[in-house]
């Protein structure tokens, strides 16, 4: 009885010490994120801008950001057959539901000829399959809550396979940057694995690689919240990862603040071989795993930005990026 009690007491006190240590390291919890950042800095009225990929794309373009080229939009079931004519001049393209959640319903076509469509994996599908996929997207099969949706067709990005070869398995790696009041505060790359089935979704088993804001170099890597050093499928040493075009990428991320007016958000970007960094998606409720990937808490950086005096003229994206690169540098721990 006494030993049971003392072990219970030891467990509770270990919980308290963990909590204290996390607090000391500035790790942000879900309650803190919701109460102190999202509800305070993200006006609800701005959410539709980021929850709809088509709207995000349009405002991003208006602000001069690079986005994958829009081939067309299919809004009604009656227009579904228009797809074949639409993509005639494009060799490869992507079909996305505008309000698809968690990467659902994204169909990638790498080549097509006379009604025969080929996926990147080499699998061949018919024009009927493509039509049914669009029809499902319009019916809301992929949108959260099953709301009616529109299908966005855009040019397939040519992802930078020189810089990233071996870091991702069967999927395009994307870069998530947390932007707070226009300042990039933390970044990571999400690399798909065999377990995650080509998806860059961390809780499905994708590898999260924390990136040093100063250099774009890998700081730390985790899979399923556990630190790793090599990519589980390709065996590539993750510490060798360096994101090229780092300044341009961070400036693009920072400019999302001007686009949306959301104070606390996650910007998801990809690097195109020819066009450089592109905005794929914006997120008003970015997750907290980025802290685990970086081995660092978000709070010290967020509070650093909160403490900044507001000048009469708000700093330009380039100035904000320079500030972030200077203040939020990290030591590689791989």
């Amino acid at each position, binding site marked *: 009885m006494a030993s049971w009690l003392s072990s219970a007491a030891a467990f509770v006190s270990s*919980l308290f010490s*963990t*909590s204290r*240590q*996390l*607090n000391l*390291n500035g*790790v942000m*919890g*879900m*309650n*803190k994120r919701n*109460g*102190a950042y999202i509800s*305070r*800095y993200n006006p609800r009225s701005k959410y539709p801008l980021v929850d709809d990929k088509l709207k995000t794309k349009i405002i991003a373009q208006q602000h001069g950001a690079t986005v994958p080229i829009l081939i067309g939009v299919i809004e009604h079931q009656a227009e579904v057959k228009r797809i074949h004519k639409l993509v005639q001049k494009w060799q490869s393209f992507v079909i996305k539901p505008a309000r698809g*959640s*968690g990467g*659902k319903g994204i169909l990638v076509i790498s080549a097509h000829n006379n009604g025969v469509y080929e996926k990147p994996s080499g699998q061949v599908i018919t024009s009927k399959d493509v039509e049914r996929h669009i*029809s*499902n997207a319009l*019916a*809301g*099969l992929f949108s*959260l*809550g*099953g*709301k*009616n949706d529109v299908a966005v067709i855009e040019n397939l990005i040519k992802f930078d396979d020189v810089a990233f070869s071996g870091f991702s398995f069967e999927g395009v790696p994307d870069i998530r940057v947390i932007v707070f*009041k226009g300042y990039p505060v933390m970044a990571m790359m999400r690399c798909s694995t065999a377990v995650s089935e080509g998806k860059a979704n961390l*809780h*499905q088993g994708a590898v999260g690689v924390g990136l040093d804001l100063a250099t774009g170099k890998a700081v730390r890597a*985790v899979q399923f*919240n*556990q*630190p790793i050093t090599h990519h589980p499928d390709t065996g590539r040493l993750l510490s060798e990862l360096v994101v090229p075009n780092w300044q341009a990428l961070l400036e693009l991320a920072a400019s999302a603040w001007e686009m949306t007016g959301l*104070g606390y958000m996650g910007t998801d970007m990809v690097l195109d071989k020819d066009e450089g960094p592109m905005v794929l998606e914006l997120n008003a409720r970015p997750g907290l795993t980025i*802290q*685990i990937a970086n*081995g*660092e*808490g978000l709070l010290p950086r967020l509070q650093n930005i*909160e*403490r*900044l*005096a*507001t000048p009469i003229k708000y700093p330009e994206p380039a100035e904000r990026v320079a500030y972030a690169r200077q203040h939020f540098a990290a030591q590689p721990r791989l």
Partner: protein
Amino acid sequence: MPHEPGINEPSRLPFYVLILLLLIIGVALSVIRNQDYGVPWTPSESRQVWDIEARIEFTAVGGPVKVSFAVPNSQAGFTLVDNSASSAGYGLSYLNSRSSRRAQWSIRDARGAQTLYYKTQFLVDQYAQQKLSTAIPPLLQNLPTPTFGPAHKGAVAALSEQALKRSADNVTFTRELIKQLNDLDNQNAALMLNDFSKVEALTKLLAYAKIHSKTVGVIELEDGRRRQSIIPMIEVWEGDAWHLFNPESNEQNALNNVLVWDDSNVSLLDVIGGKNSKVSYSMIAQDITPISATKKKAAADSLLNFSIHSLPLEEQAMFKTIMLIPIGALIVVFIRILIGLKTSGTFMPVLIAVAFVQTQLLPGIIGFLLIVGTGLVIRGYLSKLNLLLVARISAVIIAVILIISVFTIVSFNMGLTQGLTITFFPMIILSWTIERMSILWEEEGAKEVLLQGGGSLFAAVLIYLAMTNPSIQHITFNFIGSQFIVLAAILLMGNYTGYRLLELKRFKSLAEG
């Protein structure tokens, strides 16, 4: 701290003042209830008071109406504390005869639907005397022997003979008769019950054996019941008192939760000048000191009455459940904000817990798993058809109703009466749960479904345990102040921005120096 213009951090002071205010109001109201009304802090059996309300409904045909209604009196186990009647426009008088009490309402002219209320309060009192009619011996010294048709004669003789052999006095004789009547294999009993109800058959058999008996109307006391009707039972004269028997049951010792409402042996309700009359009962148990029962009555008229006990009993019984919902909400808030457990749908666990209260825990959990499991299979097929959301949900609702009917019928035919309570599950809620779980399954995989479904079920069980806890039931219903305290606690938790318990594990790797 300097801030972005337009995004000012509001001062937290008013918030904490509000919480303090709520706490003060809550505590003050509770203390007043305890001090002035004498409601004890903990539930206790010995000081229980039953409030019973009879609701008489009939249609007046126009012209004078006279309603005579048998009302109960103190009896073994129960002391009459208070009674009152409400009846707009009617004159009311009580007629006390040697053997019965009746309330009589009268009006010169009434037309259309009429509702009369009679409210009475009984103190549970094991020392209560057998008063008045319970001790009045039967009027007739010699009972007329009932006559039976040729079909029944043999059966009556056989039944009486066997009961007589196995009994020593009137009480044991009656018990033996009831046993035979409840024996499904007894041919003689079956013959009698073809033409008579159990009560009628028993009365005739007792008269045949020259034993004085009478039919009384009783109500079964169960806390929070509404729309109950009166149940006929038999009283038998033995020695110097009447003994109550339930003809439906062989067990005679479980009769301490029945109150004899009408032992006049005349009629429960007579309506002159009306038709379609009916009586229904609502009842509720309260814990209160006998002294304060009188004190409370005196205070209720003059003081501002802060309790829901001034409402009609039917509404009060409803509030008994409603007042438990905030406790469920509190637990959900606790589980989500402080522990960080995922539940599917924010307050779905509360509704499931309310259903568990009706079904009991184990049949409830089994029923829930059966319905949701089968529903998921059906929903899996529906998703292949690519239907629109509204049509899909509607189809799932119908599927859930069919599943519930099938399980009810199967369990009934298997002799499992617990299966019948499955109908208490809120069908619309279940359909949404199935829909949400199904989408979750497609998007995140089976593991996430198990995680969230398990979380919801765990939360529901916790809430069920809280809702069925007698102390919590007692506090929430008797002390309205407790609601303010719960509200304050919920608001306070909404202000918590620290780590959730499960986040300590999630971020464990970040906790190293």
